């Protein structure tokens, strides 16, 4: 088993994605030329994906602290205190490109990866969510991608037995060549049993567990590594196949071992597999790690150190154990029929040392590898502001009722039942608010009355028009969705999906979104505890819409007090909380009914957002509210239609306030608003008055149809059909009309 000799030519360096400056730094760090394995390690560690070289300067500006935060960004997932010694552990992650290439496996392995990030920290996953963006329905690939991605997410999560309880989906031609698949997992741990990745204890064993390593996903360097063998193309599938069964065993085995005190630290092998896990563990502990690569369980013959270090085979973990605990740990992994191998030791050299049948296959000082990783302050341009659209100028030939039917059947607003019925959202028996029933999913803690409220949100068309407002709006909407169930928002994770950051306009979108998110996170006390960045989402110079997805987590002390959005009784008074200007710029109405995607998005006033939300949450805790729904895409009309459908009772809306056009009233997307259904109108209105919060009666629940101001009436049956039919019939091959 001799080491393959590869000459490090400038071409090979370039194929590894290192610039000549970056390569010079490599030479300085090593004091010599790297061998191919070392070059591969620098290449992946300094890739955009692992080093965050374009985004790091800006991510550092996000607010990450608060009394509730136990662990902010920098670990496998964020950790938040939820009282009684319990902690919520969560993160979101993208698997965009792999899902475009192979939607089922790409999405499935994305879900597998994010769950590993969460259970690496000692948490049992209790909920999965996903945020999806596809191209326009008419595009040739869209249907196939939707079907594969949804099946893949379900396939993995269902087999793992973790309920998938929420998500969001948009369709836009900007995603034709670059779909987005962002998966989020929320887990539960005890605050005194959180596991971190920091290696320590010179001489401690480094242990590999899980699946064997194959040649999966060794990317970026295909050409260079073609030197190794003739049939390298065939040997190097860039797509990984998920094995949820093995991951389920890995989850149970890890949690079983974590219940002992044998583990010093643990890290999943995600992107850049063995490389990033060993480097991160060593770097955090300020120690060295020596790996005997020939001891790594291998799936295929003839694997090289280069391939072992770069493989992205799934369902694997690296751990440092306390000395002498190997046998005990091995027994657990044997029981679960998983590979277990002692592959190295913690050293005091500060180096990552790679051995191959006794020979040294590489030696890199860890601190410089990490510290010298490139960080760019990429030039950026602010997005030019768009003019505010005057609502008087918005005209359509459709009546209010016809417009509502059109919107309720549109790709971005129609029912997602076809999707979430493919996800097991009931397993565990703790899903108190199921998909479609409330603004956030509510998942109770096993054996307790408290529950977590979870949601993912982003409105990319706002972000395109004004990244700062769009970034703030995404955070505000997540906060609002949690608030609308009665839960208290705790913290967020974020997935920054953008185009090519080397283009100043795109970098400007990123910067703007971060600024908006920061401001909102600060004002709303909604700190960022984890996240993920996915750049270069563009094809032939066409970038995706800027899509900073926010995953929010909140807490409600008693799940029984959470409210859904359905109108389940007649005679409830509908009260609109918040102020309505009738802002139609960038609204769904303007885009999908009028056919113009233009103007400035609705302004986000964070102080008002907070005041209105705190007020609503307070009303819910006083049990004054029977149903609550935040106003977002499609404004008041869509909100009331959704409440009617969810609860099965109709509603009648009063006339628009004097001086306000009916379109602006029904379809404006002003922020910081909630529609609440109450029994005691007086109590709510006087509380609002006392709190200085705008609140007005706008209608009543009654009957079996929805009546809009102006008299347009739609029966419940018709509304349900309009809303439910489009996605299933599109997926069955019909064109979307």
């Amino acid at each position, binding site marked *: 088993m001799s080491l393959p000799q590869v000459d490090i030519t400038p071409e090979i360096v370039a194929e590894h994605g290192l610039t000549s400056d970056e390569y010079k730094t490599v030479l300085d760090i090593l004091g010599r030329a790297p061998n191919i394995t070392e070059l591969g390690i620098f290449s992946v560690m300094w890739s955009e994906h692992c080093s965050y070289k374009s985004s790091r300067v800006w991510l550092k500006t996000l607010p990450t602290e608060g009394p509730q935060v136990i662990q902010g960004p920098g670990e496998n997932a964020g950790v938040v205190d939820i009282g009684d010694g319990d902690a919520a552990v969560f993160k979101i992650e993208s698997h965009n490109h792999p899902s475009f290439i*192979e939607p089922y496996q790409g999405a499935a392995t994305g879900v597998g990866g994010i769950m590993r990030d969460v259970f690496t920290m000692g948490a049992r996953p209790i909920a999965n969510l996903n945020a999806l963006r596809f191209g326009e329905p008419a595009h040739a690939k869209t249907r196939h991608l939707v079907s594969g991605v949804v099946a893949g997410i379900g396939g993995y999560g269902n087999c793992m037995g973790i309920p998938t309880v929420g998500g969001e989906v948009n369709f836009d031609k900007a995603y034709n060549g670059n779909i987005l698949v962002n998966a989020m997992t929320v887990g539960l741990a005890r605050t005194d049993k959180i596991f971190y990745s920091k290696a320590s204890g010179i001489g401690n064993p480094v242990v590999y567990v899980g*699946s064997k390593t*194959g040649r*999966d996903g060794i990317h970026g360097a295909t050409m260079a590594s073609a030197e190794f063998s003739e049939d390298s193309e*065939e*040997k*190097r*599938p860039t797509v990984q*196949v998920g094995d949820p*069964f093995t991951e389920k065993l890995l989850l149970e085995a890890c949690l079983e071992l974590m219940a002992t005190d044998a583990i010093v630290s643990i890290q999943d092998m995600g992107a850049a597999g063995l490389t990033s896990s060993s480097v991160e563990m060593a770097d955090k502990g300020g120690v060295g790690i020596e790996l005997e690569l020939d001891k790594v369980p291998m799936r295929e013959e003839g694997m090289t150190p280069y391939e072992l270090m770069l493989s992205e085979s799934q369902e694997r973990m690296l751990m440092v154990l306390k000395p002498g605990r190997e046998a005990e740990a091995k027994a657990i992994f044997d029981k679960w029929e998983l590979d277990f191998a002692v592959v190295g030791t913690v050293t005091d050299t500060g180096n990552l040392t790679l051995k191959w049948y006794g020979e040294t296959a590489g030696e890199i000082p860890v601190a410089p590898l990490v510290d010298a990783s490139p960080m760019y302050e990429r030039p950026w341009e602010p997005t030019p502001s768009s003019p505010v659209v005057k609502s008087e100028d918005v005209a359509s030939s459709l009546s209010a009722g016809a417009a509502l039917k059109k919107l309720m059947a549109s790709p971005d607003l129609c029912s997602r039942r076809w999707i979430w019925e493919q996800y097991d959202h009931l397993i565990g028996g703790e899903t108190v608010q199921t998909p479609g029933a409330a603004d956030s999913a509510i998942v109770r803690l096993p054996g307790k009355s408290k529950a977590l409220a979870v949601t993912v949100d982003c409105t990319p068309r706002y972000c395109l028009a004004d990244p700062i407002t769009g970034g703030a709006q995404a955070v505000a909407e997540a906060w609002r969705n949690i608030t609308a169930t009665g839960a208290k928002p705790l913290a967020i994770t974020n997935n920054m999906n953008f185009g090519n950051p080397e283009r100043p306009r795109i970098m400007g979108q990123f910067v703007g979104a971060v600024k908006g998110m920061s401001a909102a996170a600060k004002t709303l006390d909604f700190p960022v505890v984890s996240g993920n960045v996915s750049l270069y989402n563009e094809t032939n110079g066409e970038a995706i819409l800027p899509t900073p997805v926010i995953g929010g987590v909140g807490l409600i002390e008693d799940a029984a007090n959470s409210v859904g959005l359905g109108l389940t009784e007649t005679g409830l008074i509908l009260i609109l909380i918040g102020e309505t200007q009738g802002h139609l710029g960038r609204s769904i109405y303007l885009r999908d009914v009028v056919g113009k995607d233009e103007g400035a998005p609705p302004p986000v006033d964070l102080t008002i957002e907070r005041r209105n939300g705190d007020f609503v949450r307070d009303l819910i805790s006083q049990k004054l509210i029977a149903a609550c729904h935040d106003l977002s895409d499609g404004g008041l009309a869509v909100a009331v239609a959704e409440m009617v459908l969810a609860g099965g009772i109709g509603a009648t809306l009063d006339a628009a306030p004097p001086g306000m056009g009916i379109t602006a009233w029904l379809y404006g997307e002003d922020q910081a608003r909630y529609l609440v259904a109450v029994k005691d109108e007086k109590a709510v209105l006087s509380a609002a008055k006392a709190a200085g919060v705008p609140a007005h009666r706008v209608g009543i629940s009654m009957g079996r149809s929805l009546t809009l101001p102006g008299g347009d009436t739609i029966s419940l049956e018709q509304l349900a059909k309009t809303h439910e039919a489009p996605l299933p019939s599109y997926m069955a091959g019909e064109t979307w009309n």
Partner: protein
Amino acid sequence: MKANVTVTLKRGVLDPQGKAIGHALEGLGFDGIGEVRQGKLIEVELAETDRAKAEAALDEMCRKLLANTVIEDYRIEIAE
């Protein structure tokens, strides 16, 4: 005309199903089981009577639908 299309995972692509089947066979007491891989067999009846044309059509079917060539290989056999 009848054709059998077999679709198998490319070499090197993880085959969790095959792995589990191999494991289960061992559990049932079968000895000397080496690698097990699982693939798909798709039997297609075609109206086409020209062999060459049928083959061309089947090849296109495989590339367009039956196989995912990113991770799978396919083989076409015309039965009669």
